[in-house]
């Protein structure tokens, strides 16, 4: 399985609802183990994740920050333990969307 395949996969929650594509994969720095995936949908979600707004790495310009604000709020982190099946085309979770942690909150932990 390739990392790029997982990056293109669609995330499905326990009830079968599509949560959108995988936006990012978080890796442990020492073991290179996948600790979870970031999922997000909606307008400007791709830009929010590709340019670092979703992680708080980018702060400006103001217009882009405003356009990506909604996608940043909607980004969720699914820990590896919440993944039932790793795909490759679909990543199936064993939890519902409401049980996932907002990405910004997960990054503070």
């Amino acid at each position, binding site marked *: 399985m*390739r990392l790029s395949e997982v*990056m293109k996969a669609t995330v499905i929650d326990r009830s079968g609802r599509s949560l959108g594509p995988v936006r990012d994969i978080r890796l442990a720095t020492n073991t*290179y*183990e*996948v*600790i979870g995936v970031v999922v997000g949908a909606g307008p400007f979600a791709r830009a929010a994740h590709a340019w670092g707004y979703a992680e708080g790495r980018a702060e400006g310009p103001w217009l882009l920050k405003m356009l990506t604000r909604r996608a940043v709020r909607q980004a969720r982190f699914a820990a590896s333990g919440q*993944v039932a099946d*790793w795909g490759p085309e679909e990543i199936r979770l064993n939890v519902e969307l409401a049980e996932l942690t907002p990405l910004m909150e997960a990054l*503070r932990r």
Partner: protein
Amino acid sequence: MTTVRASISARIALMDKQIVDRDRLPIGRVDDAELQLPDDGGPPYITALRIGAQALGERLGGSVGGTMAAAAARLRTDPSPAGLDVSLVEHLEPMVAVRARLADLPQIAPLERWLAQRIQRAPGAGDAPQ
């Protein structure tokens, strides 16, 4: 266990990152990575970094990516894209550094090596300023 805050983003900290060898010579970019799913059902982990036009073409997909990957594969004897075992990686920031020297990694950049050998043999190549 690694916290989310201490983890790295594969999109930002790994994919397309410059790779340098032990002597800090650039040897390519991370075009993809190989993931292994453990038999015990644990989370996948990276086993190798994929480098080169074949890996990039396969990642891009479509007709352009397919053509790129097929052309690159024809120049290789090994059917799979060039790879670097992840155990060779020393650190990821600010660029991916590996513990080995490029000369000790024959699977990496074979076309560039082939061209370098021809250029070294060309008349006047020895007079080039360093």
